[in-house]
């Protein structure tokens, strides 16, 4: 119970930080921001590592294995497409 309350505190406080982080975003940045935040939500990869690398059951390891594939696609692909989008903006500005 103690740990749960502590985690709940962290969750609520982090949510407030998240709410405050984004104020005014120009429309051109909507998709890249969404994409970048999406890549961060691939953090669940860390949970997948713990499941797949755990000692307890082979069945769980296979589930973890699938989770790692999914989460890695999210993380690697997510950060890469975000970078590609933002790179394009830079070029556009340079052309002016």
């Amino acid at each position: 119970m103690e740990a749960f309350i502590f985690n709940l505190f962290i969750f609520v406080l982090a949510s407030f930080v998240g709410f405050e982080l984004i104020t005014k975003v120009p429309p051109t940045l909507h998709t890249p921001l969404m994409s970048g935040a999406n890549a961060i939500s691939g953090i669940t990869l860390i949970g997948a590592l713990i499941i797949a690398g755990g000692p307890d059951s082979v069945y769980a390891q296979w589930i973890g294995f699938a989770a790692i594939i999914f989460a890695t696609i999210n993380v690697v692909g997510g950060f890469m497409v975000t970078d590609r989008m933002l790179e394009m903006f830079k070029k556009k500005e340079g052309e002016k």
Partner: protein
Amino acid sequence: PNLIQIFYLIATGFFIVGIKRLGSPATARSGNQLASLGMLIGVVVTLFDREIIAFEFIIAGMVIGAFIGIFAAKKVQMTAMPEMVAIFNGFGGGASALVAWGEFTRLDPSIFDTQGLVTTGLSILIGSITFTGSFIAFGKLKGFIGGGRIALPGQNYINLLLTAIALGLVGWFAVDPEYQLVFWLLFGLALLIGVLTVLPIGGADMPVVISLLNSYSGIAASMAGFVLGNNLLIISGALVGAAGLILTNIMCKAMNRTLINVLFGAFGGVSDAG
């Protein structure tokens, strides 16, 4: 273990500064790079966790995932970015559901307390909705599925009812975790809700929906963090969940719509579609 926590704290800082910088054109690219660095730190440090003893699944999974991710990210056309983000997001949400399922499977259900079971159920529910919802969003943008509004009469009521039932199943699961049927019903229903809630929404509103699903996948990751007792997951997931919600709202305003209007807009379209 303490050292791991300190590195997790550093990664968290990178995520916060990264998201902040992504919100402004001049700093956006560096923000993305900072966030990816934070991710790298988190992953590498986790591999030193004493609980992790088997690496064959980890290495194989990461190689396969990275290969697919890089291939998809390189191949995608600039105009097809929103649907690419949707797919990635779907995989992230699916991964969170799998993490909760895996943790539940590998441990004896009797050692879970009520909070652990509720968060397991929520992680599976939200993660699965994100998974199928994102794929429907992808299909709509790609034109595989009709871009218009596909809805049964009273679709919104059906969706609300199904969501209420799903939440009830989470509660049932928390009370009686060893009853397998409830677990599978919850999983199946969540996947179905993802399909049914996104299907009625018109193609033009898809970016807003993807942004909302992105917020969901953050919350799913956060719930998975509760299940595992992992700070980094809880914090990063909550950050994305909250920031994603704000961004969704901003995107709605840019289109002169409200979120309620986007999500339940099919009310007006029912007669056309039916």
